[in-house]
């Protein structure tokens, strides 16, 4: 029984290595094919270890797991992503870990920097007929209510790179200067910027990414 199962396993390993050989030959890497054939033991170990489930109907499928092997996205949705990350939740999808994208001080991926440094070029829409508007190059100075805290410079450009105007206007922000009575208290309670930041966008605790323009009137 044992011997036969072992034999079948070897067969599988052999066929896998053969597959590898064919694959390499097809892609033109003939030189590495020899090493692939020479290390069937390693292949065997690899097939033993991995066996990732790819069936989208299976909730244990690798596409639903974060990098720590737990199901992704089952944390408290009211908590900032930085909290989930410190509590041991890993990356989702898993491919992001090896992506080498720039990260912010919380270890979360800095998507804005990824765009600015041309590391990524996302498609404008899943719908090929959708017309893409170029980003709106318009910075808005939002003075803080406090006498001390640096003013905010809001970049339309980075936001309209990802989003359409209707996502924010006029439901979240009235498109008129001074018409939105924002406070940090409201924002941390999930209004205005807090509709996205602290949730899908970078956490509000990263103060200096928005509060960038020093107040000259006060010291």
């Amino acid at each position, binding site marked *: 029984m044992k011997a036969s199962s072992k034999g079948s396993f070897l067969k599988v390993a052999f066929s896998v290595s053969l597959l590898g050989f064919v694959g390499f030959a097809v892609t033109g890497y003939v030189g590495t094919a020899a090493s692939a054939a020479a290390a069937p033991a390693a292949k065997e170990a690899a097939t033993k270890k991995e066996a990732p489930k790819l069936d989208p109907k299976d909730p244990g499928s690798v596409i639903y797991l974060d990098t720590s092997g737990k199901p992704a996205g089952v944390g408290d949705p009211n908590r900032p992503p930085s909290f989930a990350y410190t509590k041991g939740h890993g990356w989702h999808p898993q491919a992001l870990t090896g992506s080498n994208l720039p990260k912010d001080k919380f270890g979360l991926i800095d998507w804005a920097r990824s765009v600015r440094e041309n590391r990524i070029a996302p498609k404008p829409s899943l719908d090929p007929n959708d017309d893409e508007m170029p980003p709106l190059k318009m910075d808005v100075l939002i003075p803080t209510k*406090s006498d001390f*805290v*640096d003013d905010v410079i809001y970049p339309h450009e980075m936001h309209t790179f990802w989003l359409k105007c209707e996502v924010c206007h006029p439901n979240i922000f009235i498109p008129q200067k001074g018409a939105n009575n924002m406070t940090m*208290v*409201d924002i941390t309670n999930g209004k205005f910027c807090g509709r996205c930041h602290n949730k899908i966008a970078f956490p509000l605790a990263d103060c200096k990414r928005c509060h960038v323009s020093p107040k000259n009137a006060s010291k």
Partner: protein
Amino acid sequence: MAKSNIAAVILTGLLMPAVAMGAIGNIRLDDKIASMRKAGVGPVIFPHGKHEKIYKCGECHPKIFKDKHGANDSSMKYNMEGRFCGSPNCHNSMKAFPLDRCANCHTNVRAAK
């Protein structure tokens, strides 16, 4: 008898500094109250006692905070820049709650409108 006396002396010797230094309690920070009102928050009640339980005096004084009333010009601006409460190992790190938890420090936190 003598033994217990020695123990008492050692005990008082150990407790004295704790009593002298540790009875500070809460400190009300409201010298920038006008600015705070504009931002929709009230004065900060700093729980010195809570911090005493976790840290030694020397971890904050005098490097981060001068141990004198009114000697520290702390503001949210400086906290964000990594000074005072927002020092890199404190409320600007994963060790303590982040600076965007307004109501954890400020009293009378109210949403505008």
